[in-house]
């Protein structure tokens, strides 16, 4: 009898301690949980809910309209156009800024002197205020007094009205987008490059990888896999989120030629005050981001992590 008591008591005590521990753990996590619910979950739910209403800022009442907003979105030419523009912008800015970022990182990595100077120089656009820098770009792109067209004129090319023409406005913004994100991607790639063990390059050399090109494909590119995955995800998300240059330089024009998703949402929500409709757009926007991120990690994750 005594032995049974002796063995069952510690077990009960262990179970109690475990419960106690779980409670303590929850207590420790509580501040984080409250903050996440308050600042992330609640706003997202609110946006999704508002997307099913016809709420307008200033109204005292709102009405549930089910999927009316979404049906309207499909017929809204401005929205479809902005969706298409955002896709085009992303398709240009993300790959170009990733490729250039990697290229610059490789060049800086192989450079002995002036390394920190170049790193800082390329990172400046990331750190600078884009709205302030937009005035510089406006000057650079100016059709008559801008240096870009002046240079083109020197070699006999008649430069376009970069930001003023509906044919080129989106591409001009893409150039600024690339300029802005190369530095950021470069810093991420530099971090990835320094994490590659030097001995792998030595092994590649001994194994017969004569040229830098061979060593890049044998060592650098595969070893950068996790970094590239992360840079790609961040680049796409950042490109989809473009807004400030559009607002500052073209205001979505001319004739909706450079209207992007976030700009359209801004217009609907803050200019026309149709919060319900803007919320429906935001829901679509969020869905796109979630799907993109999810897809990327699903497709690439298994291929880039080796251990």
């Amino acid at each position, binding site marked *: 009898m005594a032995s049974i008591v002796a063995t069952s008591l510690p077990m009960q005590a262990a179970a109690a301690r475990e419960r106690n521990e779980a409670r303590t753990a929850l207590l420790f996590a509580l501040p984080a949980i409250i903050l996440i619910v308050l600042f992330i979950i609640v706003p997202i739910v609110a946006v999704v809910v508002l997307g099913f209403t016809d709420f307008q800022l200033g109204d005292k009442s709102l009405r549930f309209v089910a999927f009316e907003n979404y049906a309207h979105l499909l017929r809204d030419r401005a929205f479809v156009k902005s969706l298409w523009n955002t896709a085009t912008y992303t398709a240009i800015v993300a790959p170009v800024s990733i490729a250039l970022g990697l290229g610059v990182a490789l060049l800086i990595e192989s450079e002995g002197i002036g390394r920190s100077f170049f790193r800082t120089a390329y990172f400046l656009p990331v750190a600078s205020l884009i709205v302030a820098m937009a005035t510089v770009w406006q000057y650079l792109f100016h059709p008559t007094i801008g240096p870009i067209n002046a240079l083109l004129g020197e070699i006999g090319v008649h430069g376009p009205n970069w930001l003023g023409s509906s044919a080129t406005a989106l591409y001009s913004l893409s150039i600024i987008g690339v300029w802005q994100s190369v530095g950021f991607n470069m810093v991420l790639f530099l971090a990835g490059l320094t994490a590659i*063990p030097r*001995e*792998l390059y*030595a*092994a*590649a*050399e*001994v*194994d*017969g*990888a*004569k040229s830098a*090109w*061979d060593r890049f494909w*044998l*060592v650098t590119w*595969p*070893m950068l*896999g996790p970094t590239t995955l992360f840079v790609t995800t961040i680049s796409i998300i950042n490109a989809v989120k473009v807004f400030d240059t559009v607002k500052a330089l073209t205001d979505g024009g001319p004739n909706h030629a450079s209207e992007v998703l976030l700009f359209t949402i801004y217009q609907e929500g803050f200019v026309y005050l149709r919060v319900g409709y803007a919320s429906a757009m935001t829901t679509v926007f969020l869905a796109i981001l979630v799907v993109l991120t999810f897809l990327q990690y699903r497709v690439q994750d298994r291929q880039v992590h*080796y*251990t």
Partner: protein
Amino acid sequence: MSALSLRGIAKSFGGNAILKGVDLDVQPGEFIALVGPSGCGKSTLLRILAGLDHADSGEIILGGSDVSAVAAADRNIAMVFQSYALYPHLTTSENIAVPLAMRRLSRVQRLPFIGSLIPGQRAARSGIIRDVREMAVSLKIDHLLDRKPGQMSGGQRQRVALARAMVRRPAVFLMDEPLSNLDANLRVHARGEIVDLHRRAGVPTVYVTHDQAEALSMADRVAVMIGGQLLQLASPQTIYDDPAHVEVARFVGQPRINLLPALAENGIVAFGGIRLALEDGGVTGKNVTLGIRPEFVSLTQNRQDALAAHIERMEFLGSEVILYAKLDAIGETMVVKLSPAEAAGLSAGMPVALTLAAEQAMVFAEDGRRLRASSTTVDATREKAHG
């Protein structure tokens, strides 16, 4: 003709001389261990040999031709790295195939998809696969061919690294502390395996290690490198019994050799009851170092002419006991190797009397050079002085 010769290799980094003119000859089929404390330049020398670094001066002669200016990829030298440096994204078979693919396939042939359209690619590929398999079988890693390095143990990775280095049948084989990442048991086992592999392949090998026991147990000849200089290159036995320099004597041997300060007068070094006559009888009034290995120091009952000491501590190692005793006269700690029977009844703090085996004592000059000497008696010395 030697398989590999180094002539006056010197290298400095930022004004710091790492290698100060190293000469080394490796005979065909020979296993040379390059041993020294960390920072002695042995890894730098190996990297220069491999072509990963370039010497400031000196030449490397491989198979009769100077390869000092030849790139690592073209040297036909294979290397096993300390961290194994396997490509983590490739499977074992792909890892082993890399050196073959790099040499047998052109850059276009190596491309995925497009490569298979180039004539000759298929035949070359199947040849590579056959060689890889053969190598894997001989190293008993054929069951690991589809695994990636992250899914293998340290010992398995080390074999894959060996296979990758051996598969292309190099002219010289370099190993940079390949066993230092293995646990102690596996290390002793792997030592034997590497020696065995070397015997089968017959490729001259330069093996870098900081572990003197590893060097002595594996190599045909041991090269002891200290402070960027090759102090001695000889068989393990000679290195141990007959060191040419005090640093070699100090580095090789476990437990370490006893080094005691002594004075040479008229070509005679007298210490603790032993007298050594130097070959160069003219050495007088010079400080020298007397070296004697722990196994040649013994306990004595006869206190006369013996060194009085007190036991500091004792280490029981099973077949032997290591005794650390502080000399009463000069405060130096002597290391003594005893059998357990001899050590019975001793404990820390007890006084003991030590004698040295005169025939086994060595004398080193102040600059570290070995001074040849032979044991002599007081009478013989007197005769010499009078005659």
